[in-house]
């Protein structure tokens, strides 16, 4: 998981807030934030994008995984103001022009969820994993998806869904 080392956006000395520019699912946002705001809270509370879930808020469950410039990060441990200029994709941004992303379709085909709470994070993690290109075997996929907990235990079907999408890509 990456940590950007970019200077924070412009600080506003008086109010203690910082302004930051982010492109989320293709839409540009200029925001003024408390510098402690996590990317997850920014998405959920400021942009009303509640697809990304808060499972633990400590970087330990993966429910909040999003794509930051194409790489997967746990958004609960990512400070929004550190990502000035970045491109964020959340689960809401995976489908394009009314068509599901192949991994979304594969999750449906393989029944890769039960309660669905981990699903947005699993999807973002899976999309990045496929793009990373490191995982070839089932074991490698399992290993590289092990940061995303599914308490319902839908792992077998999640694996099958990722393999289907991998074959298609």
């Amino acid at each position: 998981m990456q940590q950007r080392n970019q200077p924070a956006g412009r600080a506003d000395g008086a109010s203690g807030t910082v302004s930051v520019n982010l492109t989320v699912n293709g839409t540009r946002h200029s925001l003024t934030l408390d510098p402690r705001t996590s990317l997850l809270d920014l998405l959920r509370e400021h942009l009303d994008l509640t697809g990304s879930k808060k499972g633990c808020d400590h970087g330990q469950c993966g429910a909040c995984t999003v794509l930051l410039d194409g790489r997967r990060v746990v958004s609960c441990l990512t400070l929004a103001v550190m990502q000035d200029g970045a491109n964020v994709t959340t689960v809401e941004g995976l489908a394009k022009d009314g068509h599901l992303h192949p991994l979304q379709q594969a999750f449906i085909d393989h029944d890769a969820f039960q309660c669905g709470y981990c699903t947005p994070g699993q999807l973002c993690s899976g999309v990045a994993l496929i793009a990373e290109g490191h995982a070839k075997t089932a074991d490698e996929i399992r290993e590289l998806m092990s940061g995303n907990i599914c308490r319902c235990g839908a792992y077998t079907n999640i694996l099958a869904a990722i393999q289907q999408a991998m074959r298609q890509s």
Partner: protein
Amino acid sequence: MSVAEVAQAPNVVAEAALRSVGVATQHDSAVRHVCGSAAYVDDVREPEGTLHLAVGGAPAARGRLKAIDLAAVRAAPGVVRVLTAADIPGRNDSSPVNAGDDPILAADSVAFHHQAVFLVVAQTRDAARRAAKLGKIDIEAERPLVSVDDALAAQSYVLPEYTFLTGEPEAALAASPHRVSGSLRIGGQEHFYLEGQVALAVPGEDDMLIYSSTQHPSELQAIVAHMLHLPAAAVTVEVRRMGGAFGGKETQAAQWAALAALAARLTGRPCKMRLDRDDDMIMTGKRHDFRADYTAGFDGDGRITAFDVMLASRCGYSADLSASINDRAMFHADNGYYLPAARIVTKRTKTHTVSNTAFRGFGGPQGMMAVERLIDDIAWSLGLDPLDVRKRNLYGDGRDVTPYGMRVTDNILPELIDTLERTSDYRTRRRAIAAFNSASPYLKRGIALTPVKFGISFTTTHLNQAGALVHVYLDGSVHLNHGGTEMGQGLFVKVAQVVAEEFGIDLAQVKITPTSTAKVPNTSPTAASSGADMNSMAARDAAQTIKGRLIAFAAEKYATPPELISFRDSHALIGNRLVPFAQILREAYLARVSLSSTGFYRTPDLHWDPGKGKGRPFFYFAYGAACSEVIIDTLTGEMKVARVDILHDVGRSLNPAIDIGQIEGGFVQGMGWLTCEELVYDQAGRLLTHAPSTYKIPCASDVPPDFRIALFDAANREDTIYRSKAVGEPPLMLGISVFAAIADAIHSLAPGKRVPLDAPATPESILHAIHQVTQD
């Protein structure tokens, strides 16, 4: 297996005439789940002016509350109000059994570490949480009782002990050619529902609307009504879906919803309570950990002649559901085995820890563990294959009455185990493993095939009832509501399939709606695996009432005998005439026929005499078996599950895709409970494992690389909905096969010796057992 593959799988037989039931239909929220548009309570758009809550917890586990200084909390930025027990207008109790022992906010004393003492109401969640840290709570601390052993030594109990007795265990023990005694520790388990406890309360004129992630809306409604001195009719609880629950939201969602409602009532503003994950793990109950002490007799063939077992559980500070949970442990102390003479005792210990609660299996898994260990003991001491000992002890002809007097009439375990023994290639692999172990000095393999027999019904008989509400609109769409809640188990789609089948319409025409106490009242919790069994029946009852009216109407209008009228493919078939469903509805409406009905179901043939400990507490049993193979490193205690084969009985499946998901998920959760998930308390009663960083939940790489699941296709002998069986809990206990396989691997180090492996079988626990068997 994909949904499509399941639909074609040869072992899945959907009755040819059925169009919706028995089909591997995708989860009703599937598209929403993958698009992130399935809303959970925390995603509901907050009304303008919503306030946020955080609790201040006790700094000690036991003692009198001397003083609470909240000045700094009140002065903190963003704080609107700070509430204590004194602010509760009505009853300060969220106990599920009206025991009065679960204060919503602690009043005079505290009984576990971090118990809720005060509530901060603030403009933001962050402000509330920061302020909550500023409270000064002064407690006259006493030494807490933390473990089962502490409580047993102090004779501290939440409930009286309870015994099942069958035959004469003393005499049978004395007459037994062989005897064995042992003790086993069985760990607890954190639910870690991925969506934590959460509620949003919105005050109305003289009423309250609560969105909660709860398995038991009706109970929550009653608790809030009593707390606020409101009639139940003024409190509405709504649940669309939960992000997992597993029993952890059966009773223990209530306190958080009650706090939200309290704050909403006192401030007049919407209030939201969402527990931080660590608080959730520290402040809510878990699966009971148990200690099992047993003595048993057996004959030279390994048949059990007598079983005398004492099960002691850590209930925590209050009763919660511990009575029924310990009862269920007793009901499953036989698992699938005939016990000619038995004494089964449970001691329900009171400790100064969170109140342990329902967790998938509800005591049943813990109850089974002792007898499964006993079987291994017998096999080890007689030098038999544990599978042979298991098979010899199964219920059978003339050996078919449980220790609680219920005759087992639907036993399919002998056939099911034989099939799995064959399909898993158990005997060949057993030989290969023996060869491997004799050639491998440090890595050892083990294998075990263990059964599950799980009783279906609430053992609290009156809970075995369900209600539903169905409206049919003139365009042919159907509004479906029932008392069950959706937590990911696929209940909603199963009930909708049943209703679609009944009206002969497409599943898409059935609109699934959130569970609401305003639509179906006085409901039971969605628990005991009974959700689909009972709510499908209730919904079908409602649909049949409406259908009956339509048939009576059509019979008259079209002068056709009622027997010649049926509904299929979105049409009414009236004699030889096909009338579109929407058309017959319109005609019926114009003739002033009601197109709305409630439905009701109560499970038949249940009776229980608690005084005698005898009766028929279950409608039927669900069965299954798993064969697991593991490999352990005897130098490090590391363990890997290599392969798992499961054959599980869901009767005639209502939805094979959903059922297979439940079996996989249940197994993984059971395996986690018995291998990697370990709860650790310190002597002061503080939970040290309160985040996933220290509490290890199975992840993708812990799932067996070779994992084969099949459904045992046989109709339920009892008259359940389309002869299906409940599936929520039973598969969890298939995880016992992994634990037994680990013991088998350790046993290869010292054949003939008993393996004192405790659960969870963490690397430490495995190393400890290895040390014990190789020591002398």
